[in-house]
């Protein structure tokens, strides 16, 4: 699992690749939190285009990050989840908390409103 982090104004963009299970959940959690504890960051975009698998350990990382962002009154977006991964996100109900977008451009459009 590769994790790439990028900050654009007050938004943290996280692009991950591979299988999001317990092995990588801890690594991903700590990498995101390190950046997020930067006070400027209000919103989080999680780009999952290249994630081929997610289980409940991966869902836990997402839910935890959502809670952190919410406590800052920020918003969280999940971008480009593949059907297999999307099914699990819906199953868990995370789609009701986080905005599901097709691509990063959609988020920018959403944020613009």
């Amino acid at each position, binding site marked *: 699992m590769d994790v790439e982090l990028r900050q654009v104004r007050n938004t943290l963009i996280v692009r991950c690749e591979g299988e999001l299970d317990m092995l990588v959940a801890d690594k991903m959690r700590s990498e995101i939190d390190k950046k997020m504890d930067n006070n400027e960051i209000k919103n989080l975009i999680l780009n999952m285009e290249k994630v081929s698998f997610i289980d*409940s350990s991966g869902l836990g990382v997402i839910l935890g990050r959502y809670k952190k962002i919410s406590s800052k009154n920020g918003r969280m977006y999940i971008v480009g989840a593949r059907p297999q991964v999307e099914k699990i996100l819906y199953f868990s109900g995370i789609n009701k908390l986080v905005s599901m977008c097709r691509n990063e451009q959609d988020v920018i459009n959403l944020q613009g409103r």
Partner: protein
Amino acid sequence: MNVRNYCKFEILSLPENISFARACVGAFASQLGCTIDEIEEVKLVVSEAVSNCIIHAYENRSNEIITIVISLLENRTLEIIIEDYGKGIEDIDSVLQPTYSSEPNRMGLGFTFMKSFMDDMEVLSKPGEGTSVQLKRSFLTKDKEAYA
């Protein structure tokens, strides 16, 4: 039920073996000619059960043993038994409740996924001795629908 083929394997309680276990079970289940979606569901279920052994049964100690037995039974039925020799479960009924977790930052969805994506789940456990999760799913869906 007659066993057409089976495979038994023993792995260590290391997080890197979760994806290995998924891959193995997926490869074996593919002998039933399941769809990719079905294989993905089976992989998820294995991921949950093996993660539970590592996190809960062995409290993240590596060097403990997890055994997995995969059997292909009649009527395209897949049976997976995942066993640990860890701390066990005191009250099985309560841990099976959706969103129940003994760990604050976990979601308590593992057993829910297992139940949802398989036809049958049985959990046997003895505190201090270990836990065995038995999962079954038949891939005769086409016929099932036809007869429904």
